[in-house]
């Protein structure tokens, strides 16, 4: 199987879906000629033209609103918000409009829009360009939330997101774009709401998201030398969350570490820990641990950035504390 980057995988999904369905179109800041800030949409203008690859003003609320309105009348827009941090500007359109419109209109409307964005610590991107805000969206009923960690998942999940009849927040990671992975050339779609066991193991369950899946895999490799067999689960979609896969794993291992790049307080880790406590309490053989960013804004200084961000060592330490 060929290897492509995460960036190429997202682009392939967009391209294939735009070819398959003329109602699919893209809009966002600098996505046309420039190919997007992280070059995901590079080359798509050439193939699909400015009608379907639309550069927008720097107007996040209008971008999301435009995607929502177009979706309401039958289009399948994929909007790019350059940084997840900028979602804050569009929050009303996302939270009060897009997420609620079907429900408050009594089920009459549907809004099959995808809002693509990217987050996570970069290389000193600092406080307004490096956040991991997935929990914001998970907290809003009516939004699906996708957070792929590999090129394979990114492609399959993007295709599923575009085909989904609901609003989907699709969260990429700026430091994953260059990561390579096996992606088949033939068509495939990964259903939303299905976790993936990235590494089977028996001693401890690690639920990790986005780039932390890679960190957890590295950590697991090291811990193998110490005789610790780590199972790594990537939920892939946070809403809907595949609770069954997580619970099954915890029932097997009795131990859970949740790893995410977002800050700890009310992060997705809290939700997963609570779910396990509610539904698999009697299977827990140790307190649940969370490995997350510290509850601080992201500092600019590289040393400080590394200090607040979770990494392999922090993951290993947490696992050893549980298993050792």
């Amino acid at each position, binding site marked *: 199987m060929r290897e492509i980057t995460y960036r190429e995988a997202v682009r392939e999904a967009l391209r294939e879906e735009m070819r398959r369905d003329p*109602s699919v*179109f893209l809009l966002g800041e600098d996505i046309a000629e420039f190919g997007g800030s992280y070059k995901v949409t590079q080359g798509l203008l050439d193939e699909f033209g400015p*009608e*379907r690859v*639309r550069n*927008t*003003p720097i*107007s*996040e*609320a*209008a*971008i*999301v*609103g*435009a*995607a*929502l*309105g*177009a*979706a*309401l*009348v*039958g*289009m399948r*827009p994929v909007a790019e918000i350059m940084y997840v941090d900028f979602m804050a500007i569009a929050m*009303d*359109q996302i939270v*009060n*409009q897009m997420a609620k*419109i*079907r*429900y*408050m*209109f*009594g*089920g*009459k*409307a*549907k809004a*099959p829009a995808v809002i693509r964005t990217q987050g996570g610590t970069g290389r000193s991107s600092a406080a307004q360009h490096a956040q991991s805000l997935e929990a914001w969206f998970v907290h809003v*009923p*009516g939004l*699906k939330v996708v957070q792929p960690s590999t090129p394979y998942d990114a492609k399959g999940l993007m295709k599923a997101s575009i085909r*989904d*009849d*609901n609003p989907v927040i699709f969260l990429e990671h700026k430091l994953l774009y260059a990561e390579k992975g096996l992606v088949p050339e033939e068509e495939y779609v990964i259903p939303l709401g299905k976790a993936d066991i990235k590494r089977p193991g028996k001693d401890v369950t690690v639920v990790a998201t986005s780039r932390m899946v890679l960190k957890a895999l590295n950590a697991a490799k090291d811990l193998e030398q110490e005789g610790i067999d780590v199972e790594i689960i990537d939920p892939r979609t946070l809403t809907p969350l595949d609770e069954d896969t997580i619970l099954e794993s915890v029932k097997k291992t009795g131990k859970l570490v949740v790893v995410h790049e977002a800050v700890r307080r009310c992060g997705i880790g809290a939700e997963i820990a609570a779910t396990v406590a509610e539904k698999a309490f009697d299977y827990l053989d140790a307190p649940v641990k969370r490995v997350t960013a510290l509850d601080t804004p992201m500092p600019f200084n590289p040393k400080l950035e590394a200090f607040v961000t979770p990494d392999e060592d922090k993951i290993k330490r947490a696992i050893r504390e549980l298993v050792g």
Partner: protein
Amino acid sequence: MAVSEIGKDKLLHMYRKMGEIRVFEETAADLFMKGRLPGFLHSSVGQEASSVGACAALRPEDYMTSTHRGHGDIIAKGATLDRMMAELFAKETGYCKGKGGSMHIADLDLGILGATGIVGAGLPYAVGAALGFKMKGTDQVVLSFFGDGGSNTGAFHEALNLAAVWDLPVIFLCHNNQYAETTPQRVHQKIKDVAVRAQAHGIPGVTVDGMDVLAVYETTKAAVERAKKGEGPTLIESKTYRFMGHFVGDPGVGIYRTREEVEEWRKRDPIPNFRKVLIEAGVATEAELNQIDQDVAKEMEEAIRFAEASPEPELEEALQDIFVES
């Protein structure tokens, strides 16, 4: 535009719609004050000409969005009083199955893309719907109602700009009822005419007498034509007045506006004025218009009966419609 050019049916339709709105709003306010309706209520009494004149310029296939003060716009676009009232009663037969309420009535089949309770928030997605129509190659247009208050939001400017740069078939219709909730226009914006903000976005801006249904109709019709031709959006400012308070329960006089001011505007009540125009122009007789008034009253009574007799939604309904189930 001369009355004769519009045609009697349309004129009487407009008269009827204005009557429906007035009766509906007054009845709803009455029921609310008797404690019969849950939630809260924003009355649009006084703005009937603005709503009806604008929507009369739309075809059934055209879309509109509205606001928390949206009953009038929605009735003007074709919603019926029975299902409107059922929604206010939070009944299963309401337009939103009792899950939206007064502020969120929608019916996509009628081109009602819904009311939103967030001031200014309807504009961006109205622009999106216009984008969708444009891309699909239909000649449908979208009309987005908002108020003078909404014209101060970032969403307003983002939406106007985006619609302008993409020449989208959208009409931004501002009911300038002089108050952003309880704050008078002179306090909340430096400009006198919201329409001038069109200039900032390179699109036409028109101010029209919002108490004159025909003036609103004529202005909107021109904007619709322009949009259909692919010439882009228009901002229409319809100067009107909210006879009642910001919400039912707000006395509307005393604190932030005077009784004299309200009385002054009431003299320009769009319904008796339009009635006079129709009679003077020989379009309809007193008797014909009285008959319409009686029909509307009867429709209202039946709507209440319908709403009262309708069942409440099952509890299970709370869990439905969050997502489209695949």
